[in-house]
């Protein structure tokens, strides 16, 4: 069972016809039940890869396949439904200012046809696990960078996604919190999810908890032993 890029090419339309594609005819697979680390220099396309895997962008050509199903070719309505199985933590976090921490985490649960009390309970438990219980009702913009990052992780994981995509999830964390986050990602993978982490963080590069590693540079994916 894999989440795979098949012959995937991505070029930004606004970069012009002569611009080099970000990556060209890439074939790479990410296994379910495993954690995969993607590294690479800044601007190499790691974030764009995660956005493509999450169905937030359409590739220029090629396909993203979830267990063989060409999800990137699906019409918007079908991709919307499929995306409910995906949890994503953006590098820029994109928390909603003006809403509380609890509301930001609840945002992922609203469309999932749950009772309101069950949603609130689930969100509160996730926030507590991530050591943010004291800030439950606080406006998210007053949290520190590290706290905001954990809030974004909570929002991505609260609905127990089948596919978890994390862009620099430990960049603003101290060692203890980085380790705590890694524990959660491992638990998620152990539960059968496909976890893909993109990071520069040396602590993650040196971690032995990833099942697979890829390096992305100049549009080329290389498996790292």
């Amino acid at each position, binding site marked *: 069972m894999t989440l795979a890029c098949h012959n995937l090419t991505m070029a930004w339309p606004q970069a012009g016809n002569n611009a080099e594609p970000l990556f060209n005819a890439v074939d790479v697979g990410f296994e379910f039940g495993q954690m995969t680390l993607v590294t690479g220099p800044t601007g190499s396309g790691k974030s764009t890869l995660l956005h493509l895997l999450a169905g937030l962008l359409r590739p220029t050509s090629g396909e993203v396949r979830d267990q063989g199903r060409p999800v990137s070719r699906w019409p918007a309505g079908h991709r919307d439904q499929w995306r409910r199985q995906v949890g994503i933590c953006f590098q820029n976090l994109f928390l909603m200012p003006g809403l509380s921490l609890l509301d930001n985490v609840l945002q992922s649960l609203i469309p999932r046809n749950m009772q*309101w009390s069950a949603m609130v309970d689930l969100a509160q438990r996730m926030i507590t696990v991530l050591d943010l219980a004291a800030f439950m009702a606080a406006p998210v913009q007053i949290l520190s960078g590290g706290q905001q990052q954990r809030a974004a992780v909570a929002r991505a994981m609260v609905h127990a996604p089948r596919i978890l995509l994390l862009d620099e999830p430990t960049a603003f964390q101290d060692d203890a919190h980085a380790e705590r986050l890694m524990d959660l990602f491992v638990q998620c993978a152990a539960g059968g999810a496909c976890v893909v982490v993109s990071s520069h963080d040396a602590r993650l590069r040196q971690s032995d908890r990833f099942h697979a590693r890829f390096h992305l540079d100049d549009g080329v994916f290389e498996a790292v032993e």
Partner: protein
Amino acid sequence: MNIVPMMAWSRRDLGRRPALAVLLFLALSTVTALVAAVLILHHAVVRTFDGLLDHSPAMVVRRVGGGGWMPMPVAPALSAVRSAPGAVRPRTRIWGVVAAGDVPVTIVGVEKVHGFGLPGGIEVPTPGQAWLGTGVRWPDKGQGLALTGRQRVTLAVSGRLPESAAMAVHDLVVLHADDARRLLGLQPGQASDLVLDVFHDQEADSLARELSTAFPWPVQITTRHAVRTAYATHFAARGAAGLLGFIPALLALVLLIAALGVWGFRGRPDMGLMKAMGWTSGDLLRLHLTRAVLVGLPAFAAGLLGAWAVCFFPGNKWLPRLLFDWSGPTLALSPHGAIGSLALAAAVVFLPYLVASFWSGWQTVQADPMELIQGRGQ
């Protein structure tokens, strides 16, 4: 999706941009109030006027000559009418306009005859007495009501006519027929005009043609049906002009559309983010509409309440006068008419608002999530 979480989320979302929500509320309630006021008033004026006409005679006959109106001899007039089949309860009236000081008032002359009574149980005045409408100034203490027509006549005031008398004019003075004749220059046996009823209103036009040749002098005949038609046209024209004349309402509408546009534009990154979090286009459209309804319904209700207050708040008569030149009795609105006006106001204001909300939401949710997040949506 459960409606409770959607409502809760919509409320939170509105709370993030309270100024925009308030702006939208004010614009929508103002437009609703202005449009509903015109619609409600139009219906109320037509209904009230119809009620007055229902109590008026089916046909009015006036004698006319080269100089206009002329006194009508009672005996030959009644004789002429009784010769026409279909004329019911013909009777003559003594009335006209005279001066009370420097103010014009309408006088109606009555006399005590078998079977005649004034509304509200008031006594028929004897010679030298008068009853005053609510708009006629009460004379100073110890002085009578001085009226000036062909002659000057001073009358003792017996009291006020009751509001419930449903008189069409409030500047009315009811006095004895002899006093009225003196004021109007009528001789005994003469009247101002003649009125009659018919079995069916539809018969009035054909009866009018027949009657026009039955009198020994030229007459002008006005039927209730003709008056009703003429005033219905008049009120419809005033109502349409009122709707078009509300430039502030149109400005508010422009504001409303601008607010919706701003809302849609500013909401796009959020929409993209929510799609990334698992919201479908349908969910987002429902959110957009729920948000619109949460602002729109209270605004619509407030607008209707405002319109009601402006139209029917006791003593508030400036709007009926401004829009429909109405200075008659207190306006009345039937439940049926109220529901009809509200439904029409909904069709004119609320439905377009919902359609605009749906359209702006639909435009937004079409784009790919990342395009919306990065502000490159459609």
